[in-house]
């Protein structure tokens, strides 16, 4: 149970960072923290106490395996997360070139 609570705490840490940080890079890092808490949650969903890696062993039919599907999903989600992080970093670099600052309070062209 403690693992699930830690996973939720990690999500909240990321969320807190997104809301309170003023630096664009720190916001991006906070997004990554939230993302990782989601991946951790998926890994926990597939975990079975005492389970081993899901490589079927014909010699030992009573072995308990962990659920392999969430692991596959997490791998997919990590690749997607990489793409979103790269995209965000590219935009942050462009923003820095235009505004000359990482401070989000200075970047307020759009209103209303």
């Amino acid at each position, binding site marked *: 149970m403690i693992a699930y609570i830690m996973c939720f705490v990690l999500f909240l840490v990321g969320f807190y960072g997104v809301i309170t940080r003023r630096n664009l890079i720190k916001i991006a890092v906070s997004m990554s923290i939230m993302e990782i808490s*989601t991946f951790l949650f998926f890994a926990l969903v597939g975990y079975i106490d005492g389970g081993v890696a899901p490589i079927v062993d014909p010699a030992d039919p009573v072995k308990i395996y962990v659920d392999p599907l969430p692991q596959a999903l997490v791998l997919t989600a990590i690749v997607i997360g990489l793409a979103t992080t790269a995209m965000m970093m590219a935009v*942050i670099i462009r923003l820095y070139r235009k505004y000359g600052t990482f401070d989000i309070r200075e970047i307020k062209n759009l209103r209303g």
Partner: protein
Amino acid sequence: MNPLIPFFVVIPLAGAFLIMITGRFFKEFDKYLTSMILLFLAIISFYSLFTTRENLSVYKVGGWEPIDKVPIGIYMVMDGFNAIIVCIINLVGFLSALYSISYIKRYTSGNYFYALFCLMIGGMNGVVLSGDLFNIFVFLEISVISSYALVAFGVEKSELEASFKYQVLGGLASFLILFGIGFIYWKTKTLNIADIKEAFNNGYDRTYYLFVQILILSGFGLKAAIIPFHAWLPDAHSSAPSPISAMLSGVFIKAVGIYVILRLFFNMFAVTEGIAILITTLGTLSMVIGVFLAIGQWDFKRLLAYHSISQMGYVILSTGIGMILIARGTKPEVAALAITGGIFHLINHAAFKGLLFLNAGAIEYSTGTRNLKEMGGLARSMPVTSATSFIASMSISGIPPFNGFFSKLIIIIAAIMARFYLLAALAVIVSIITLASFLKFQRYAFYNKSDINTNQQIKEVPFPMVFSMVVLSIICVLLSLLVIPDIRDTVLTPAVNILTDQLKYTTTIIGQ
């Protein structure tokens, strides 16, 4: 059985890579290739719409057949409802791609634009056709990441800022959706929507799934820009290049937002009155607040973006009324009427909002400004833009005989028959305020100044842009034919049946 399902995803994805490779060697190739791809997709989507009707077709990716009626592969499903959405995506996509041929000359590196455009179309088609929760997430991310890039395509100050905002909120939405999928998988041990419904029938933990429903609703609500989650939409939609604004506002928020919400909440979760009331409330809030935020705007792309929120409110409101009636189990014919109105308005909104953003792009192309105060007297120098935008403005404000009138009429009648008199009254009032704000748009953009003041340099836009706008305005007028019973039975009724019938979707897919 429809053999064309995988083409909707494979062709645009393949097209995107082909454009990236060949775009370096052949300069003019990419723009025509994109239009041809989308024309082909539009044709096969209409073929699918008219052949699908009441029967579902399932495509099993990789040929993984179910074992003991438990699906193990990824399913792609085509039914009456998503056939309509696929038609909208590919038709509006085709017209926007054609429009871009002239419009994109303002920007450099056009081949990146077309590659991202194809990726976005492929992602949206994938979301709509997928019958698998995690597959929905993957395709959602494909289309969303390409839309982040397309919003920032101008790489000026405001475009980048809008894209950053959009990315933070969009990323948050993705995590919420992923958490929701994780929670569903935890209990049911499956990801196939039909199979999840089957698992729900065997045991439904109401409080547990209420939490999951809230997660999913806020995740996809962020993508659909329902009112408490709307902050990114006006920035992103007004900063993007105009054909992309037309795609985002006309199609994107429906395909990845509203469509998925309707599909999951009607066909997967058990319909409960609490969630139905929540959805209706959110819809009403979007409808009312969106229009009040819109009326004070002077940047007309921003004005149109706020109206998107308001018009999506109509769709959510009326499907929410249908959901409440289904949950109560009373008046099934009124529920069907309400959902018909919602889907009809969704189709109409794609036509007129796409057209309005293309008009906005045409005005920006000719005059170089987006501020309503700085323009005026364009009716003489840009006759086609003026005429088509008049049709679109009248459609969105619900003036007969244009399409918006009939869908709003159906929504209001359904609300009255369901005894939600307050909602019906609000729908009428919002419609009047919409009319007011579009009269303002018409007056300041096209009339207002006398001929002497008008700049003689302003000319009508090139042919591809004119063609797209004229075709969309003809569609705006023709869509009102959907109200005729025979045509409605062909197009709208199968979509309504699949949503109102709680079991048909599941039993057909599991049975195949």
